[in-house]
């Protein structure tokens, strides 16, 4: 027998009802079922089950997010080096990776400890198994936040989102709104001063002796491309990087631009999308229709471009590459719990997210990014969309009966 298995079996009585450690039962169960496949066999219905379970689904999403996480580390270091005016010889790949790693690690740990902590407690209270949903949420949260978000804010926002967006509805599978986006929205509306502007998207201080100091006096602007567009006033609009050099669409596609930690690289997001689609975890209908919706609205906005809405100067392709649009399309809109669940409904749901994201971004200068709000808004409408699709099926059945009579 596996020695680890023996340790777990030996410890089991401690955690069971009446054991000394019974308040930690859910933790024990959680680790046990994480390490070892539970030996529950089917008791009713089918005698065999597909090998897939929600753990594997969640882990696949986490794997799909890794390219974005790794690139986010690199980019955080890169922006720091760039902002500090380092010369090319000083750029070191591993130095930048280490810097980015040190920058994101506390946020990652904060999100997981707070979120999983609440999950463990609620599983204990409800006498249920730990549910895996937070495995994904925990990595999404640092990826959608600016790198300079203080850990305590992430802790407060995560706790709010997990309790009020998920647990009060019954836990994983019952929530109406995407938990990671509720976290982001909470931060956005509760701490607007700290969560926007041009200072939060670039790490400016050395961490544990790694990295450089970025000096604001040197004409430095850490504003994201969309932030620049939103505050643009008159004249030719040129988006620049943080030291004032013009940005190309290629920079935005690769992701070497300031932005939320994991959202900048469209390339890495597409790698993640490929993993999700090959694995059959995300629904291609949603991803496709978000991009179609965004392109259509981007095209409309660009056709009727106007100086009062400077974002309308962006081409549809730029709209897709800048900001959190691609990230939202691939990782947020496809959350199966909060998305539309019917096949036809998914097209409508995705298309509307694409349209609304670009609509908010272009025509509301107060919000330089609309993807988050678009997904949350359509989360609220997803049940209505499904309702309409299901009514169609019911109507077909009713008409069959009437045509017979």
């Amino acid at each position, binding site marked *: 027998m596996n020695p680890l298995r023996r340790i777990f079996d030996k410890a089991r009585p401690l955690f069971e009802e009446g054991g000394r450690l019974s308040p930690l039962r859910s933790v024990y169960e959680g680790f046990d079922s994480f390490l070892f496949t539970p030996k529950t066999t089917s008791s009713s219905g089918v005698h065999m089950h597909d090998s897939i379970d929600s753990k594997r689904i969640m882990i696949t999403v986490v794997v799909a997010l890794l390219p974005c996480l790794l690139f986010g580390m690199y980019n955080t270091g890169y922006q720091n080096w760039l902002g500090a005016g380092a010369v090319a010889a000083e750029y070191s790949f591993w130095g930048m990776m280490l810097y980015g790693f040190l920058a994101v690690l506390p946020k990652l740990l904060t999100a997981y400890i707070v979120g999983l902590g609440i999950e463990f407690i609620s599983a204990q209270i409800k006498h249920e*198994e730990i549910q895996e949903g937070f495995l994904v949420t925990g990595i999404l949260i640092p990826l959608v936040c600016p790198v300079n978000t203080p850990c305590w804010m992430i802790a407060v926002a995560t706790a709010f989102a997990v309790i009020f967006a998920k647990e009060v509805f019954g836990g994983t599978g019952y929530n109406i709104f995407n938990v990671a986006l509720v976290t982001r929205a909470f931060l956005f509306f509760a701490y607007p001063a700290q969560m926007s502007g041009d200072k939060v998207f670039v790490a400016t201080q050395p961490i544990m002796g790694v990295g450089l100091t970025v000096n604001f006096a040197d004409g430095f602007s850490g504003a994201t491309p969309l932030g620049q567009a939103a505050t643009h006033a008159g004249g030719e609009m040129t988006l620049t990087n943080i030291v004032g050099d013009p940005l190309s669409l290629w920079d935005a596609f690769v992701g070497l631009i300031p932005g939320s930690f994991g959202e900048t690289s469209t390339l890495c997001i597409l790698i993640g999308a490929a993993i999700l689609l090959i694995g059959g975890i995300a629904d291609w209908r949603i991803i496709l229709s978000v991009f179609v919706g965004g392109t259509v609205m981007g095209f409309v906005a660009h056709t009727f471009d106007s100086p009062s809405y400077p974002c309308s100067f962006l081409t549809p392709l730029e709209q897709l590459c800048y900001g959190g649009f691609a990230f939202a399309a691939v990782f947020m809109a496809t959350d199966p719990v909060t998305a539309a669940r*019917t096949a036809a409904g998914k097209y409508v749901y995705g298309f509307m997210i694409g349209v609304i994201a670009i609509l908010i971004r272009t025509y509301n200068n107060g919000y330089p990014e609309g993807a988050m709000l678009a997904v949350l808004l359509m989360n609220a409408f997803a049940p209505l969309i499904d309702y309409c699709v299901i009514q169609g099926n019911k109507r077909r*059945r009713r008409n069959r009966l009437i045509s017979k009579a």
Partner: protein
Amino acid sequence: MKVNSTLQLKLKRGLDLPLKGEALEKLPDIVPSAVAIYPDDFPGITPKLDVREGDRVMAGTPLMHDKEYPQIALASPVGGVVKEVLRGSRRKIIRVVVTPSAEGTPERQGTSDAAIAPKTREDAVEALCRSGLWAWMRQLPYDIVPRPDAVPRDIFVTGFDSAPLATDFKQCGIDGSNLQAAVDYLSKLTDGNIYVSCRRGDSLPSIDGITRVEISGPHPAGNAGVMANNIAPVNKGETVWTLDLVTLDRIGAWVRTGATASRTNVTICGPEAVNRGVVSTLVGADMQTLLAGHIADDGRNHRIIAGNVLTGVKTDMDGFVRFPYRQATVIAEGDDKDEMLGWASLSPNKMSASRTFPSAFMPWRKLSGDALLHGGRRAMIMSGVYDRMLPMDIMLEPLVKAILSRNIEDMEALGIYEIAPEDVALAEWADPSKIELQKIVREGLEYMRREA
């Protein structure tokens, strides 16, 4: 005489499980040491006992009858002595066991060669009920033994079993003139069509008065509910009957000779069965005789299933072959091995419809599988999984939610009258949240029958 015609049905959704353990050989005939009838295998019937332990019975003697419709009999498949009436809690009848008489050849009731030729429809129904063969049919809605007072709109006969490792009807010695006799008999009981399905490319004995349905596609393409839903769905207030080709053959034999045949082919199959093959034995044969020397001696925990892995009944060596199955499947229970980090496995031996497992890219590889849930029970998380496994115009997910909330109006509107638990078995297999769909659907059907 109705016009003979042929329909084509191409089904795309569904899946043939890549399960190891096919039975190819023909094995010697077996005379079981006991046979059993389980009233639970005949949903809709409230059994009343007609015999006591020690009674002598003949093949075709009623062992039990229905409380509401006393003419519906559950007949003994063999002549012999009633060995056991097993009762459970609240004296519920679990099973009636009959020991075949020593001669081995089943004595028959009504062995006269006189054909059955009832004059009126009522007589025809009554005779079929009393023969015991009535209980072998099902009706939609509710997936129960047909109510004798309802006239079926159509009758659907399934000509093949698409379940994993199922018995091939072609090996069951089906007789064309029996089928014709049965179709002639049943066509008096319905004003509608008699549909008989077969796999595209397979031949079906030529029968007058039926509509042939040539079906292509993976399991559950062979299910009667799937055929009915795709051809002529059951509306509220309508009734259709469903049965399989072997039962049709049996009805024909009974019409022609007055006796019910009780021999049947049973397939011994599954990844943990050895010397696999098809045996000719009696309906309801005991596992002890049937499976002797067929269980792999590899020290693993085994699960013996009377039926197929999707809809069969878990049993053990003391159990019996259960209606309507002609199959005994042996698989590994799977609880005797420790597996670390199973959710991260990249093993090509894990059976899955999900492309996160390598096996999904190698559909030609046959796999063993086991009875593990492979995960914990969860709320519905993934969407669209059920739809890929159910080739019917039914939105299963909203229907399941309607059943769970006991919403009669929604259940009706979403098509509960068109579905049987066996139709959702494949979706239950594929569900990452491990929800007990067959159980839920059965409870929903029972609820509708009581309340609606």
